[in-house]
């Protein structure tokens, strides 16, 4: 049975809080991983799984399901937490993140855990795969029965393949494709505008032929309305440029470059959980 969606912003905020707490706990236990980018994308992925995607956690291979591809694979903790909280696997399993033999690899592996649509980790590859899936939906004799969503990082947009894929999605008019960009403004080496400036982003995507929607990536009303507008697009793929805060929700992690690829230590876990209430 399809997962029951709930677009109530209050409900989604409460879920996002649970997800953020899961992320902190998972990363704290794992001792390594990407904290900042997992927290910045939390509201986007929460909205997708709890209020947008047509999916069935009890039947991950449902042919008509909407697909979600985490192109920024290092945000895996957020994806795993959402998959666990929607019922793809047990919440207890989250504590195995990054351990030997775990189904929850450092970056998503489609063959190791249910609910993962593609293996990612090497940046820039998810959008191309999402295009292939969106075209596959269109090739079905009965017409496209599903939509395809993918989430990229703004640093990831440095990769040339993203723009190859962007060109091809518009060329083939993939209106069942929606890309979201987690624009947290930071990449490993520093601010995206200083490391490799990709602005003006909206103009770039427009020039590539996309339907562009810019939003606050932490406002559920804006996220849901953007997703609804994406659904209405005709012969054109949609990109949602979501302005976010890296490390969102934990004061000492927010906007700190150094928190890109490290996990909280035990005392930091405690402090973070105190803030996430």
């Amino acid at each position, binding site marked *: 049975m399809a997962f029951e969606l709930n677009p109530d912003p209050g409900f989604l905020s409460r879920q996002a809080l649970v997800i953020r707490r899961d992320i902190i706990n998972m990363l704290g236990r794992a001792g390594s991983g990407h904290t900042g980018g997992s927290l910045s994308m939390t509201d986007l992925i929460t909205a997708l799984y709890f209020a947008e995607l047509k999916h069935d956690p009890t039947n991950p291979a449902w042919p008509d399901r909407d697909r979600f591809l985490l192109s920024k694979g290092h945000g895996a903790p957020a994806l795993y937490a959402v998959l666990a909280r929607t019922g793809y696997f047990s919440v207890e399993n989250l504590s195995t993140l990054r351990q030997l033999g775990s189904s929850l690899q450092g970056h998503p*592996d*489609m*063959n190791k855990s249910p609910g993962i*649509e*593609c*293996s*990612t*980790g*090497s940046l*820039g*590859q998810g*959008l*191309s*795969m*999402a*295009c*292939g*899936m*969106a*075209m*596959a*939906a269109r*090739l079905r004799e009965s017409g496209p029965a599903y939509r395809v969503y993918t989430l990229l990082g703004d640093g990831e947009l440095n990769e*040339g*393949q993203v723009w*190859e*894929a962007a*060109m*091809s999605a518009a*060329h*083939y008019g993939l209106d069942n494709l929606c890309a979201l960009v987690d624009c947290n403004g930071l990449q490993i080496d520093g601010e995206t505008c200083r490391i490799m400036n990709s602005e003006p982003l909206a103009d770039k995507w427009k020039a590539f032929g996309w339907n562009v929607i810019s939003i606050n990536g932490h406002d559920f009303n804006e996220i849901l309305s953007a997703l609804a507008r994406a659904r209405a697009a005709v012969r054109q793929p949609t990109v949602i440029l979501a302005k976010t805060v890296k490390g969102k929700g934990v004061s000492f992690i927010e906007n700190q470059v150094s928190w890109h690829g490290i996990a909280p230590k035990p005392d930091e876990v405690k402090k973070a959980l105190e803030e996430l209430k």
Partner: protein
Amino acid sequence: MTEKIATREAYGQALAELGKQHADIVVLDADLSCSTKTNTFAKKFPDRFFNMGVAEQNMIGWAAGLAASGHVPFASSFAVFATARAFDQLRNSVALPGLNVKVAASHAGLSVGPDGASHQAIEDIALTRLLPNFTVVVPADGPQAGLATRAVYAHQGPVYLRLGRPKVESIIKDTSFTIGQAQLLRPGSDAAIIACGTMVHEACQAAEFLARDNISVRVVNMHTIKPLDAEAVLAAARETRVLLTAEEHSIIGGLGSAVAETLAEAGIGIPFKRIGVNDSFGESGEPDELFHKFGLDAENIVRQVKGLL
């Protein structure tokens, strides 16, 4: 004189025929469909053909997405671009998840000819052989390329199918083709040449020449580099006195390396020589001129066999 047909030509024909029987086949190309011969499929099945423009990395990603959705994508370009240019995509989008993507690349090796070094893939076998889950197939002539295309479709999992530009003589009589099963083309007890692709023809010619000097040469068509038919390698080593490999590829990492690894791990010491491009790039020239200059012709194989014996 037997019929001459390019392996890419036979691939294009086989693909178009397969497309009729199997609705799950989709084909992608990167602006080279007239050269890779996927244009035949494109004309017949325009709804299942996707030109990606000059964007090989994106093409492999699309193929992965289509494969993950139950289609059987054949992605074609020149060998140098389909493998080296898109290697990370082959690794992470295809090999790691083990998706059912078929990379069928033409213009492999020096026989690309006048286009020169930038277009002559001499490392593609090594690159693809290195990837877990990948199967690597190098048909020896046109008809075999057609059979291989069908076998590649029927095989579940990622495959690299290596094809060439020039018309080549049809020399393989055997109309069966099993991935991973080498073909004994000629019996012999003095020397054995294990060859793949265009070099099978050169090896057969060399064996003919050597027969005139009463040197008996076994020729093995190792059309599948991975999984390698280790039994055929070990039998050749046991039943002849010297062993050579011949490939239109660098001697590093390809067929020669695969055979050497097999011999060494089996504890077999035998006079051994890898014939191929010796750690250099190619250059412009006609295929026969290049084969001569780089020591891939039958003449040099004869010399090498005599040198070992």
